[in-house]
């Protein structure tokens, strides 16, 4: 089923991006890489990142629950010449620290990697803790690189590769453990270059972050009805791989975006803009969280309620193809 050189993981092997990237930070520090880390009372002492902080206290700063200050301090550390990682609690990165992201990080063009946790509704706890509008904001901020890794291991790769990447970066990850998309790290990964993880002629499913695995499983579901879906891991939202979208529209004639974000302004909005401006005739649908504050419930049930699960996505695809 896979036409590209990746080994996919169809089993529900779960890994936490926070745990895996924390371990990577520790490795990087052990190897002698020079960087600073800033948190805002949001790193558990028992986590891998917490243990990294314990091992390297002199390069870590905890500012307490003050995300605006956290991002500003991270910018100041970068002004002193450091590459800086900052783990920021979900919604309080794009919402509380919006001005600091825009002005201190992006306008000043500093090598700060803001790791925003609890993407989408993975936090539970209701709309105050959901992250549904961040991509819409980040996309409009110049200088930002926005990466939304498909799984925990990819996140660790992004963290390591970001040491040599110019300018500021947002790394968007879910709250806890999510299914691995890739069985190993033996695949080509380049920030800004989408990965076609499954080849298909009937339509293209484009996912980012956690939704890549949903797309993969939806493609498997669609195979049952003889529908062959191309699946794209759009791990980088900016700079965006337009060619991957144009090829998908041209070659499969139908594009469906799936994201753990509002349908407004995120991955779906970006793909819609590219297709509309290209003049390529293609069926198109955005799947994601609707324009409302999400209902409360057990997190998997909330996603199911909004059709963001393999069978729900497959059903939406079938309806679109019928039109």
């Amino acid at each position: 089923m896979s036409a590209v050189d990746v080994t996919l993981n169809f089993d529900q092997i779960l890994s936490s991006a926070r745990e895996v990237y924390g371990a990577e930070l520790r490795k990087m520090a052990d190897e002698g890489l020079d960087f600073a880390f800033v948190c805002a009372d949001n790193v558990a002492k028992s986590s891998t990142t917490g243990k990294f902080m314990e091992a390297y206290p002199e390069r870590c700063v905890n500012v307490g629950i003050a995300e605006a200050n956290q991002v500003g301090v991270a910018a100041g550390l970068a002004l002193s010449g450091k590459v800086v990682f900052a783990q920021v609690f979900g919604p309080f990165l794009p919402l509380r620290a919006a001005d600091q992201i825009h002005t201190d990080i992006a306008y000043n063009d500093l090598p700060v990697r803001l790791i925003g946790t609890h993407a989408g509704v993975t936090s539970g706890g209701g709309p105050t803790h959901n992250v549904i509008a961040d991509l819409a904001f980040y996309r409009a901020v110049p200088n930002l690189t926005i990466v939304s890794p498909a799984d925990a291991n990819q996140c660790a790769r992004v963290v390591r590769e970001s040491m040599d990447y110019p300018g500021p970066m947002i790394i968007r990850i879910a709250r806890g453990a999510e299914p691995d998309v890739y069985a190993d790290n033996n695949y080509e990964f380049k920030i800004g270059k989408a990965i076609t993880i499954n080849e298909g002629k009937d339509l293209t499913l484009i996912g980012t972050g956690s939704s890549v695995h949903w797309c993969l499983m939806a493609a498997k579901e669609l195979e049952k009805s003889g529908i062959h879906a191309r699946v794209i891991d759009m791990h980088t939202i900016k700079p965006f791989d337009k060619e991957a979208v144009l090829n998908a529209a041209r070659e499969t004639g139908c594009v469906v975006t799936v994201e753990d974000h509002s349908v407004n302004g995120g991955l779906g909005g970006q793909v819609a803009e590219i297709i509309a401006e290209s003049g390529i005739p293609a069926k198109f649908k955005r799947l994601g969280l609707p324009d409302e504050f999400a209902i409360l419930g057990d997190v998997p049930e909330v996603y199911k309620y909004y059709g963001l699960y393999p069978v729900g996505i497959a059903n939406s695809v079938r309806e679109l193809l019928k039109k």
Partner: protein
Amino acid sequence: MTTTLPRNYTIQDLEDKAVDIRKNLCTFIYRIGVAGHLGGELSMVDMAVALYYKYMNFDPKNPKDPNRDRLILSKGHCGEVLYTIFQDLGMYSFDYMVDHFESLDTYVFGMHPNRKKVPGIEASTGSLGHGMSLATGLALGARMAKENWRTYCIIGDGELHEGSNWEAFMTAGHYQLGNLVAIIDKNGLAMTGTIDEINTLDPLDEKMKAFGWDVIEIDGNNMSEVCKALESLPPSDSQIRRRPICIISNTVKGKGVDFMENVVGWHAGQLNEEKWKEALESIEKTRKVR
């Protein structure tokens, strides 16, 4: 110290320099023909002159010297003071500064400073309430790197209504950043009225002390007091944990220009030829006859 600046400026020299800078600033605003934030710029001139000409390790020929002291202008709308000082220090000509002010694709200078355009500007500022976090990060960075340059941050008093300042004050106090100096240009006025009528800050000294800072309070338009305060700073040692220092610099908004002093309406404004000449005359009158 790698600076090439003459460090033997006397208080009288600095007073004269402040007069020159105030006049150059008004001439700059007149020549660019757009509104400048003259009120808050004129209030902070004495402090900026003392820092850049005498007390900061700043080399205009090598503004990226890794050992330099850093100054974050949190009240970024007053960037023209720094441009004017850098010009006077020989970093570029006056005409260059005028010709490259908000001049579309050749722009270097703007109402708010851009660190990527203007050498000597440490951070692009303009959104109020950001400088203290940046300065705190810089001071922490110096500690991590075991370097002893000092970080200064100039903040407006109206700006202190932004809560992020207090988050940063708390952090700097907690980490005991003795290599950090906050200078509050306390001119008592904001954009639409006095600080007291808008949102009271006093007792500012007690607030700063409660946040873990040592406080020095001075008349910030009196060069002797400015110099005494800056000379009293202990050596910047990033490894020593002690309370950061806040200089509350009591100033007069619009200082030196009689028709601007303490006038809320001169928060920002343009100068026509008549007002420009009037401003220069007024500033020149403040020059002490020796």
